[in-house]
């Protein structure tokens, strides 16, 4: 049953490429349907445990896939953000040919991400990480405008370095454990003769995955990649693609497969704190909306890495919850940026200043997203940050908890400045003569509203059911 998450999108990919006319026209609808089914399946797993069903093609293929609560949260996130990206693409990409390519590449990216969260073998994990990377390169290069070249190339080069690190780590694991599944690697950590090789391997993996996740000081490619890509691709990249292939793999490997000792934990904590501070400070000085959101992304990822370095079950649960929340509110903010770009033709905050009052839906949902990012109760961002800071306090790392709190204040600062400049003050100037001021389409508005509702509801519901959500997540941590 689990392999269907990979095989059904693959089948849909083949079907979409058949030369039949009405399938091509309905491509967006079909893929949207598939992603909705994925969201429903992830939500309803506790009522209807479909993972216990045997594999459909079990006699032909042996896939070693497994599902636990972390995987379910990730599947839900992937489905939601991919669906939102699809809706944004349906509104913003005009040419017929590009729309078709986008749908196909989105399917390939979703296949890769689903497989990343389902596999239990480290080399298969690498194969699907590469699939997500390659489809991201091609997606960034989709509209082939001048500025995308540099973004793609920088991303390519840094991704190549990450590949080399990860593969060297895999070779060391082969040496130490003889087999590459998660269970054998975990049991190899208990063998004292292998400890040096395993330390080297874990550090190599750490470097490679930090590059993939965009953690400072390896964050050089994040800026150009998010900036240069078309709007719907930014939503997909920022929300899920780079996060699943970087941060989820870190959570899975350093949470339940590797056994890390204190020096490595300190390095992770330091990298997390560095990212938070760097992202927050850099976002204060930005003039362009997408750049500010990209630096904010780096900052939020820093929170997750900080929680990972703390290495207690509570911190881990907070990290996963913050991952989900970040995917939701960051996608919301990027969708708003796409709406602004479509209406006014640019994302430069100087040009957009004072014009946002013409788009009330975007303004209100943007306010929700901003408050959630900054961690204002009772929105969801507040709860996940609270859990992370509590976990840091309870394990004695007061300095890091203080840094996290202060950065939260900084986040609030720069986001409120952005909100006020664009949406809350009315400019007396005429709308600048930017080409093609189109009206915001209904689909974009619908996706913004639904993401904002998810943020609010998650925050409100969380007050009543902490036990239902946090305890199962804690159980994954060894």
């Amino acid at each position, binding site marked *: 049953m689990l392999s269907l998450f990979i095989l059904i999108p693959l089948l849909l990919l083949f079907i979409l490429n058949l030369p039949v006319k009405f399938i091509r026209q309905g491509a967006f609808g079909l893929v949207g349907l598939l992603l909705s089914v994925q969201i429903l399946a992830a939500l309803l797993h506790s009522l209807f445990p479909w993972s216990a069903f045997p594999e459909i093609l079990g006699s032909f293929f042996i896939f070693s896939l497994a599902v636990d609560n972390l995987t379910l949260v990730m599947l839900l996130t992937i489905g939601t953000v991919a669906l939102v990206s699809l809706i944004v693409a349906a509104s913003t990409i005009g040419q017929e040919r590009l729309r078709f390519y986008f749908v196909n590449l989105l399917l390939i990216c979703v296949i890769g991400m689903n497989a990343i969260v389902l596999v239990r073998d480290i080399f298969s994990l690498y194969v699907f990480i590469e699939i997500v990377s390659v489809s991201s390169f091609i997606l960034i290069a989709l509209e082939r405008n*001048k500025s995308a070249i540099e973004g793609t190339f920088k991303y*390519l080069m840094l991704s190549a370095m990450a590949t080399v690190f990860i593969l060297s780590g895999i*070779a060391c694991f*082969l040496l130490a454990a*003889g087999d*590459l599944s998660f269970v054998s690697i975990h049991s190899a950590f208990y063998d004292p003769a292998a400890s040096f090789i395993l330390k080297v391997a874990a550090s190599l993996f750490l470097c490679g995955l930090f590059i993939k996740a965009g953690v400072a000081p390896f964050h050089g490619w994040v800026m150009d990649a998010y900036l240069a890509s078309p709007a719907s691709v930014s939503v997909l990249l920022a929300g899920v693609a780079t996060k699943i292939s970087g941060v989820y793999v870190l959570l899975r490997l350093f949470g339940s497969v590797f056994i890390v000792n204190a020096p490595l934990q300190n390095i992770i904590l330091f990298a997390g704190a560095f990212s938070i501070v760097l992202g927050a400070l850099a976002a204060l000085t930005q003039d362009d909306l997408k750049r500010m959101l990209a630096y904010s992304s780096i900052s939020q990822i820093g929170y997750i890495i900080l929680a990972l370095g703390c290495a207690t079950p509570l911190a881990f649960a907070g990290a996963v919850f913050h991952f989900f929340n970040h995917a939701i509110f960051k996608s919301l903010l990027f969708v708003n940026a796409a709406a602004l770009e479509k209406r006014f033709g640019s994302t430069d905050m100087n040009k957009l200043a004072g014009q946002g009052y013409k788009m009330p839906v975007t303004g209100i949902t943007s306010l929700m997203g901003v408050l959630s990012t900054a961690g204002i109760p009772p929105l969801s961002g507040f709860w996940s940050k609270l859990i992370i800071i509590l976990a840091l306090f309870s394990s004695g790392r007061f300095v890091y908890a203080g840094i996290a709190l202060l950065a939260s204040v900084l986040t609030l600062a720069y986001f409120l400045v952005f909100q006020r400049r664009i949406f809350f003050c009315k400019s007396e100037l005429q709308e600048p003569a930017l080409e093609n001021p189109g009206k915001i389409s209904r689909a974009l508005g619908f996706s913004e509203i639904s993401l904002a509702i998810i943020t609010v509801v998650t925050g409100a519901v969380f007050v009543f059911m902490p036990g239902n959500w946090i305890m199962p997540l804690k159980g994954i941590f060894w």
Partner: protein
Amino acid sequence: MSQSALQLFCTFGIFIILLLITGAYCMFVSFNLIRVLIGFEILIKAVTLLIICAGYVCGRTALAQAIVITLIVIEIVVMVVAGGVALWAYRHNKTIDPRKLSNLKG
């Protein structure tokens, strides 16, 4: 693990590290996008040698070969896509010099 196997691994290890340095140098210090790809190729070759050597030393040659075969397929696709990006850069900027790709400031 026998001493001679460890010796072999370390000898190969020295050469692999030298090859990695060569590839990385080529990738980051070059005037031509195609040479960046050649540098990436050399890096991947070094890692391939590392995997095969690790497999030989611990006796798992079959698994190592399976990994390398899959890795070569992945590497081809990444190379083709990177070549495509280099070509597209050439057609837009009329040059394949990575120092001139500075359309994005900051």
